[in-house]
C-alpha cells in the first residue's frame, strides 16, 4: 500500500467502538490521495498487508482496560516515531471509564455468567497514563477533517491547527443562536473543546461534551447556571461523567454533584 519512501502510518486499536479509525475510511474523497502520500503500514481493519516496525506515525484508538493492553501500548510506543491518540477513549478513557466510579466485579457479573473467564482491569485509562503521547485528537468520535489536518501536519513537519477553545466559538462562527440563552436548553458547550462544528446546538440540542474539556473550563460557573435553570444535581453529575468521564476537569466537576454508585 503506497510507496515505501512515504512516511509509514500505523493504526492501533485498544478498547473502543472502531468509530475513530473508521473516520479514516470515511474520508472518501481523500482516501486514495492520502494513500499516495503515506504508506499504510499497519491498519488491520482495512488491510491484510502489514509492514514491520518502525512506524513514522501511529494513530492509537481506544483505552487501556486489560493487563495485556497495558503491555501492548509500550510496544506500540517503542515502534512509533510520533504517537497520536485519537478519540475520547484514547485521550480520556472513553465511556467505559464510567467503571472507574463503580465496582467492576459487579459490572462483570451483570454481563457475564462466568466472570472468572473475563480478564479486565478495574479501570479504563487514557493512553497518556501509560506512555508519552505526542499529540491528541479529541472527540467521540474524532472529526475527520481534524484527522486529515493532523496527518498532513505530521508528514509535513509542522504543528497541526487544532483549536482548544470552546464549542461556543463554533456556534458564533456558524451563526447558531445560543440554545442556552435563547431557549433555556442545558448545554456543555462553554466548557467543551471545539472541533465538532457545534453540531448539537445545530440540531437544537445542548452540547453533551463529547470532545472533552476545553483549555480553561469553568465548570463551577456552568453548573450554577444549570442549577438555576432547575436542573437536578444528578443530571449534572451524569453529563460530566459521560464520554469523557475520566478527563480531569469533567471527572472532578461530576463528582461535586453526587455519587455514581447505583445499586
Amino acid at each position, binding site marked *: 500500500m503506497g510507496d515505501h519512501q512515504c512516511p509509514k502510518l500505523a493504526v492501533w*486499536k485498544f*478498547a*473502543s*467502538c*472502531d*468509530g*475513530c*479509525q*473508521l*473516520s479514516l*475510511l*470515511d474520508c*472518501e*474523497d481523500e*482516501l*486514495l490521495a492520502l494513500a499516495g502520500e503515506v504508506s*499504510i503500514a499497519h491498519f*488491520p*481493519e*482495512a*488491510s*491484510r*498487508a*502489514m509492514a514491520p516496525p518502525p512506524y513514522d506515525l501511529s494513530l492509537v484508538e481506544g483505552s487501556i*482496560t486489560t493487563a495485556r*493492553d497495558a503491555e501492548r501500548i509500550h510496544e506500540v510506543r517503542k515502534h512509533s516515531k510520533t504517537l497520536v491518540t485519537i478519540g475520547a477513549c484514547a485521550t480520556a478513557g*472513553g*465511556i*467505559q471509564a*464510567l*467503571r472507574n466510579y*463503580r465496582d*467492576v466485579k459487579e*459490572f*462483570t457479573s*451483570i*454481563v*457475564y455468567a*462466568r466472570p472468572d*473467564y*473475563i*480478564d*479486565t482491569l478495574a479501570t*479504563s485509562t487514557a493512553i497518556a497514563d501509560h506512555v508519552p503521547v505526542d499529540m491528541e485528537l479529541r472527540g*467521540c*468520535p474524532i472529526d475527520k477533517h481534524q484527522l486529515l489536518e493532523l496527518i498532513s501536519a505530521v508528514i509535513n513537519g509542522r504543528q497541526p491547527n487544532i483549536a482548544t477553545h470552546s464549542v461556543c466559538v463554533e456556534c458564533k462562527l456558524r451563526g447558531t443562536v445560543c440554545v442556552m440563552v435563547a431557549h433555556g436548553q442545558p448545554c456543555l458547550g462553554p466548557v467543551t473543546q471545539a472541533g*465538532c462544528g457545534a*453540531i*448539537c446546538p445545530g*440540531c*437544537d*440540542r445542548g452540547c*453533551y461534551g*463529547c470532545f472533552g474539556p476545553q483549555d480553561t473550563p469553568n465548570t463551577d460557573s456552568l453548573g450554577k447556571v444549570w442549577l438555576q435553570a432547575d436542573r437536578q444535581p444528578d*443530571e449534572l453529575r*451524569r453529563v460530566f461523567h*459521560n*464520554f469523557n468521564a475520566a478527563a480531569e476537569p469533567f471527572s472532578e466537576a461530576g463528582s461535586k454533584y453526587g455519587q*455514581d454508585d*447505583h445499586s
Partner: protein
Amino acid sequence: MARTITVDCLTRVEGEGALTIRFDGDSVRDVKLRIFEPPRFFEGLLRGRALEEAPDITARICGICPVAYQMSACHALEDAVGIHVGEPLRTLRRLLYCGEWISSHCLHMFMLHAPDFLGYPDAISMAQEHAELVRRGLRMKQVGNAILSTIGGREIHPVNVKVGGFYRVPAAGELKALLPELIRARDAALETMNEFSRLNFPDFERDYEFVALRHPQEYPFCEGRLVSSKGLDIEVHDFERAFQEEQVPHSTALHSVIKGRGAYVCGPLARVNLNFDKLRPLAREAAVSAGFSVPCHNPFRSILARALEVIQVIDEAIEIIESWAPPAYASVQIPHKAAIGFSCTEAPRGILYHRYEVDGDGLIQDANIVPPTSQNQKSIETDLFDIAARLAAMPHEEAVLLAEQTVRNYDPCISCSTHFLKLGIKRE
C-alpha cells in the same frame, strides 16, 4: 505429518479477535472463533442512567452501526412507556437507517469483502487495477454518509436521535439536495449487483436456520415479528424465551442459540431469504437479471445480498425524500413510569435486540443488549468446521485466505459483540 498454520491477525473485520482450527490428521477436531476484545460492560454502565441518554450511550457500542443501536434503544424505551412516534417521524427514522445500511454495506462490500474475491490485501491496492470499482464504492458509501450527516449531524454517532423522535427535523430542501447523488448511486448500485454476480463464489452450502424480522408490508427495519426459515414466528418481546445467550471460555462475546435447536444466522442473507417478496420491484428485478435467487444457502454470496439491499435502500431513500414534508414537531413527549420495554431492529449485520427496565424517575434499572455478531458467531464456527476438510487439503496461504474469507462473509463486527481476531490453524 504434524503441521501448524498460524496467522497473527484476522484483518478487514471491525474489531479484533482470533481463530483456531485444530486438525487430527486430516479431520477437524476443533474450531474456535476467539474474541478477546476487552469487554466494555455497556449493560452495567447503563444502570442508573436516564432513559433519554440511552441512544447516545449505546451508539458508542459500535462506530460502524451506531444508528442501529440508537434505533433499538429508542424503540425499546418507547415500547416501555407505551409511545409510538407515528408518521412522519417513523419514515424519517427509516431514511436515517437507509443511510447507515448504504454506508456500512458499501464499506464491507468494496473495502473488506471484494478484495478477497479479486485477490488483493486491501481496497487501496485493489484500486491500482480496479480504480473504477473502488471509486464507485467510495462514492456510494459517501452518499450513505451524506444521509447520516444531513439528518444526524455527523456520520459516526449522530447527535440528532432522541427517544420520542428527533431533536430537529430537516427541511425539505436539505434532504432534496441529496437527490442527484442518490439517483446516480442507484445506477451505480445496479451496476455493482451485476458486476458482483460475476465473482467466483466457492461452492459451499449449509442448511442454515435464517432469522430476521418480517413486516406485513415492508422490507424490515424497526418493526415486525421475528421469523425463521424453520418455522419460528414470535413477537419481539418473546426473544429471550426463544433465544439464549451462552458464555464460552474463549470469547468475551456471548454466543446466542435458539433454545432446543442451536446455531442460527441473521443479517443480509437471512433478511433476503426471508423477505425477498418484500423487496422493492427494482431490487427484485435486479436480483433476477443478476441470476440471484432464494433460497440461497451459500454464505459467500452474502455480498450479493448486501448489493441487493443497497439497491433496496437507495431506492427507498429516494422515494422518502421526494415526498418529504417536515412535520411541525420533531418529537413526541416521553412520560416517566416504571416499565419494561423490548425492541429488535435490523442492524446492517442482523437483528439487534434491546430490553430495558426503567423506574418511575426515568432511570434505567436493567438493560440487555444482544448484537448481531454474537448471534452469528456459532454459525461462523460451524461454517469453518464444515470447510476445514477443504482447508486441510490446500496449500498454507490459500487455506488461510479461505478461512478468513469464511469469517468475513458475515461482516463480523467484533467491537459490537465486545473484541482481536488472531488466526491460527493447528494441524497435529
